[in-house]
């Protein structure tokens, strides 16, 4: 069946659910073929019938404006940082100044007596460990931030400092490096890998490094807390409203504070990128200060705290040795990597694109190494951009040894059929052959180069678990407006717009009739915005809610018109049969004085095998290198990215383009610089920690590749993370092409470029 979404028979719920659908995608270009196939899927009883590759959409896939664009552009949108209440207090945290040791003394008395101070709480007790520079010690609230700062300076905190280390390569667990930065240790024996290496036509070994990147969300972490008896209302800058609710209820309960309910708001969030899953110590401190002062309290981190206490993408060291046979097929892949973590020694794991070496003898080893620094947090595709940089650069070096073009080498080895189409499509769009064969003039100051890299991610969404599936509320109001609500948060990805568009599609009305609300825990439960799962997880619940609402409205209209329910459809802003129908607004008047309200749920993905698990993409980059100064300018990029069903096309493109710009930043600018002596970050601001600005913007283009995977009623997959896996790798390869020597260490700074040129 190839349902028109707006005319699905909402009354088919009781029928057998096994159904045949068409999955795959249409040809990307005239020179390619359609990749469509029929599969049988088995939706659960009660779910909305599936959309598929042949569904004719009216709203989905079009360029609807971001629903909360105007509030953001006018400055009316209220982020947690913007909440103001009468008598609201400002607050900040005293941070430990040593990287490792023990809190020896803490005297808060003088601070408590300072003018305008309303609460002071200890966040550590004497004898507690200090684990990094910036570990939270105490918190203060007061009338203004200036007065709070005055009081913080009066807190007497004393420390017993221990020997610390903030450089993971100095740790005894780290491998030794030779003078060129290569891992200088024997490989353990592995019969299969050793045999493949011995039999190979070409072998290669390379060591790659990446540095710590901070999330640098523009809205810092923080909250506004307001108590009403035992109820806590909190405005949080978070990517997990329900996570914050549970975490604070537990943490306050553990401190013997009675809390009946925690109500979390995150209607607008100024970015997260993986750093804002937890309420954190700043959330707990804010709740405690508000409780003690009996006043609303705002506690937002400053930029130095953001860089030094709110997580990061950890650094990495990777060494690969690999081999190809005479046909350019990879036969051996031996990988060992090390993650440079914070004090908890976790989160440094590095992944690599394993679809290139599916037939090779492979081995993968990884070790996380702790330092006395702020712990890693998941950051936009955790472990991927690091590993992709190492692996994709290694591929180009190996291809060079085998005398193959990097693209041809990938086409030979990439086991993902969908990406083979993407490689060819994107290479044509980018003009790969011409650019790759361009010869820089000998001795020229400016040289150009091009490179490519793949993108991969594995998310088709979650349903929330057996006990509590994700939900969605849909209301049809008597005035003809529709409201769809989720308690999950939109951190800038466009979730609200996605909810709006899916609702409109299912009901057959223009998107302008639908309001979508997100980010308040009073609404149905939804996922945290992590792992690129939000849209993929929420979309089927939106459809189900709208599908149920449609069924109820159809019942009313059928009774009103005196026609059989099964003949009534919604579409083109009308409800009725071919002969008799009501306009949408007239139909909605039948719901009576109160809105028609239904609750949809997120059914598990179908038990059947989807067309493709996860998502893939490919990116191409062009750079211009100044061989005199070593400056790398990324001049042009093209990316193709699939995310299952493309719902809000313009917004999806924004995310891909944004991921590419962030990737440029990771490739050539970003690096946390630590002072080994003090254990302190030396560039914890936006002056010395550089993120890409408008002048770093390359000419950017992307193509959204909509794919019907047939895994649930909608077929959306993840998007936030996948495009960020490829960018730095593609740029690294372009620099290699331009200067003829690899720079194997991110960020690709002028000094490293000059050193690579000198080493040729």
């Amino acid at each position, binding site marked *: 069946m190839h349902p028109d979404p707006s005319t699905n028979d909402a009354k088919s719920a009781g029928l057998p659910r096994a159904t045949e659908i068409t999955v795959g995608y249409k040809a990307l270009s005239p020179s390619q073929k359609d990749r469509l196939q029929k599969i049988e899927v088995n939706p659960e009883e009660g779910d909305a019938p599936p959309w598929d590759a042949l569904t004719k959409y009216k709203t989905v896939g079009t360029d609807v404006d971001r629903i909360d664009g105007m509030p*953001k*552009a006018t400055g009316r949108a209220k982020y947690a940082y913007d909440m103001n209440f009468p008598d609201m207090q400002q607050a900040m*945290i005293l941070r430990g100044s040593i990287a490792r040791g023990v809190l020896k003394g803490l005297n808060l008395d003088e601070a408590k007596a300072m003018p305008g101070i309303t609460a002071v709480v200890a966040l550590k007790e004497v004898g507690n460990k200090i684990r990094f520079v*910036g570990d939270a010690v105490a918190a203060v609230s007061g009338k203004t931030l200036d007065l709070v700062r005055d009081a913080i300076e009066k*807190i007497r905190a004393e420390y017993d400092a221990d020997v610390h280390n903030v450089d993971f390569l100095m740790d005894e667990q780290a491998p030794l490096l030779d003078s060129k930065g290569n891992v200088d240790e024997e490989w353990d024996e592995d019969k299969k890998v050793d045999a493949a290496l011995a039999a190979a036509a070409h072998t290669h070994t390379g060591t790659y490094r990446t540095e710590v990147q901070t999330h640098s969300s*523009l809205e810092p972490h923080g909250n506004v807390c307001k108590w009403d008896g035992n109820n806590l209302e909190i405005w949080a800058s978070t990517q997990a409203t329900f996570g914050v609710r549970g975490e604070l209820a537990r943490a306050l309960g553990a401190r013997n504070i009675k809390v009946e309910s925690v109500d979390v708001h995150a209607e607008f969030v100024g970015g997260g990128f993986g750093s804002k899953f937890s309420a954190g110590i700043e959330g707990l401190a804010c709740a405690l200060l508000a409780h003690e002062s009996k006043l609303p309290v705002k506690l937002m981190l400053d*930029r130095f705290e953001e860089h030094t206490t709110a997580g990061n993408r950890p650094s990495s060291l990777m060494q690969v040795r690999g081999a190809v046979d005479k046909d350019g097929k990879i036969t051996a892949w031996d990988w060992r990597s090390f993650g440079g973590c914070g004090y908890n020694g976790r989160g440094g794991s590095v992944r690599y694109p394993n679809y290139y070496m599916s037939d090779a003898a492979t081995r993968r080893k990884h070790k996380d190494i702790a330092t006395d620094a702020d712990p890693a947090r998941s950051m936009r595709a955790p472990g991927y951009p690091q590993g992709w940089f190492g692996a994709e650069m290694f591929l180009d070096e190996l291809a060079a040894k085998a005398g193959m073009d990097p693209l041809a080498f990938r086409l030979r080895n990439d086991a993902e059929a969908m990406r083979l189409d993407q490689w060819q499509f994107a290479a044509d769009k980018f003009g790969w052959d011409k650019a790759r064969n361009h010869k820089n003039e000998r001795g020229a100051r400016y040289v150009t180069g091009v490179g490519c890299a793949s993108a991969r991610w594995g998310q088709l969404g979650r349903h929330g678990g057996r006990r509590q599936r994700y939900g969605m509320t849909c209301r049809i109001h008597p005035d003809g407006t529709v409201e769809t609500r989720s308690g999950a948060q939109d951190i*800038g990805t466009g979730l609200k717009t996605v909810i709006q568009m899916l609702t409109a599609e299912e009901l057959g009305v223009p998107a302008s009739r639908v309001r979508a609300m997100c980010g308040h825990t009073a609404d149905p439960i939804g996922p945290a915005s992590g792992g690129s799962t939000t849209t993929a997880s929420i979309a089927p619940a939106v459809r189900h809610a709208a599908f149920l609402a449609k069924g109820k409205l159809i019942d009313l209209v059928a009774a009103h018109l005196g026609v059989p329910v099964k003949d009534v459809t919604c579409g083109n802003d009308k409800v009725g049969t071919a002969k008799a129908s009501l306009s949408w607004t007239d139909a909605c008047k039948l719901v009576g004085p109160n809105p028609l309200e239904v609750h949809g749920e997120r059914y598990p993905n179908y038990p059947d095998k989807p067309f493709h698990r996860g998502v893939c993409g490919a990116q191409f980059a062009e750079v211009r290198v100044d061989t005199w100064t070593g400056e790398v300018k990324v001049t042009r990029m093209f990316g193709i990215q699939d995310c299952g069903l493309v719902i809000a096309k313009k917004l999806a493109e*924004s995310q891909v383009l944004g991921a*590419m710009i962030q990737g440029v930043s990771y490739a050539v600018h970003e690096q946390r610089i630590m002072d080994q002596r003090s254990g302190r970050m030396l560039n914890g601001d936006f002056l010395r920690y550089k993120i890409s600005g408008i002048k770093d913007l390359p000419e950017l283009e992307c193509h959204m590749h909509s794919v019907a995977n047939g895994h649930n009623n909608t077929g959306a997959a993840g998007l936030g993370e996948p495009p960020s896996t490829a960018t730095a790798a593609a740029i690294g390869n372009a620099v290699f092409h331009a200067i003829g020597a690899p720079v194997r260490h991110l960020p690709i700074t002028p000094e490293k470029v000059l050193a690579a040129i000198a080493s040729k």
Partner: protein
Amino acid sequence: MSHPPDHGVSRRSFLKGSAVVGIASTGITAATKAAAGPPVPESFGPGEHEITLLVNGKNKLVKVETRTTLLDALRDRMDLTGAKKICDRGACGGCTVLVDGSPTNSCLMLAMDAVGTELRTVEGLSNGDDAHPLLENFVKCDALQCGFCTPGMVMSSIACLEKRGKPSPDEMRQDLSGNLCRCGTYGRVMEAIGRTANGGNK
């Protein structure tokens, strides 16, 4: 946050120490430019005192300390939260407002020093459903994602348009080089400026 003790003189204590100098020059500006405002006292502080700021065409009384930045005065004392505090060090442009038509980092300006100037904030660009075409083009071009840098981007874009009429891409890059965006909206911000300059067309 409180910086570790070895950090030396903090910016705030520096501001406290240098406030008197700042006020003296403000006094001259205020006397010559804002005759309608209250007389500027000869010395201030410690503690708060009242000043008049001309924001989006309206005179507003606001209580500040001498060390209060214009950004804090707008956000915390006047509930004008469009301008954002992102770096608080003049490095990101998130707090950009127009001071006598010039894009200015309000985190680096004392509220006192804004007495007698004409201030424009992002809130002045819309009134209910009635919004400046630039804002509509920001939405049309999807020149915003999380939206936190957006008010600053908008104010720098307005200044660019007012100064140059039809800015070239290089001129846009020059005028917006002080505004950081982490989501990566730069290209679409340039589209929105271009569209506005061309009366809504690409």
